[in-house]
């Protein structure tokens, strides 16, 4: 399988943190579903890199932001930060 995106370990840690929080508070099924939806957005962003929007008041880095649930995903081309 060719990788459509590359995730930073920092972002992976956030993903696991979100999953753990939901699992502990609302159960594993919901945690898995939310995690799966976020990962679907990773794929979506890799296929549509232009959809993220710049936030110049937040960072000088050349990254786009895209929301999923209440999470905001910073992206840099095919890299998820």
């Amino acid at each position, binding site marked *: 399988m060719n*990788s459509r995106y590359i995730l930073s*370990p920092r972002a992976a840690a956030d993903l696991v943190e979100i999953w753990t929080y939901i699992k502990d508070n609302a159960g594993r099924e919901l945690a898995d579903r939310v995690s799966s939806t976020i990962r679907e957005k990773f794929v979506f962003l890799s296929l549509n890199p232009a959809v993220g929007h710049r936030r110049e008041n937040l960072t000088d880095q050349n990254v786009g932001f895209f929301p999923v649930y209440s999470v905001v995903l910073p992206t840099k081309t095919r890299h998820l930060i």
Partner: protein
Amino acid sequence: MAGNLRPSLAPEGPHNTTEVISANTVYHTSGIRHSINLYFVFAQILRKTALFSLCRGGRIMTSKLAQSRVRRQEMQIEIRDPALQARIQEQLKSSGSSDMEDVLRRLLETQEEQDRWLLENKAAIQAKINLGIQQLDAGLGIPEDQLDVYIARMKAKSE
């Protein structure tokens, strides 16, 4: 002059205090062009004295001063993308609103709340972004095809 009449309960004459002319919205959809046109008419708040219409002797008069001060700015937004148009229609339906300004206001409130949270946490977010970029630049990124294994290992650690 349309939209510039004295409120019925307001005292007559040039010593009125404040008059707010409500914003008007025209919501129009065109099946041919798949577009939504929004017209926002903003009227400024008129304060004191002769900045409003006077109704005297059954005749409506508008002071020249009022005419010069009332500025109606129209903002036209044309949406050509049918998919985006459908999303807006869905927002109209789900919010039970028939007023596009209501929908826009609600979306802006949501966006502004997110912005507020992001800005309040700006330093932490910048640190995360910088760390993530450093990791990617150092070749430590996790390709999609290795993510399942990586995540499973981290989850196992957290349990």
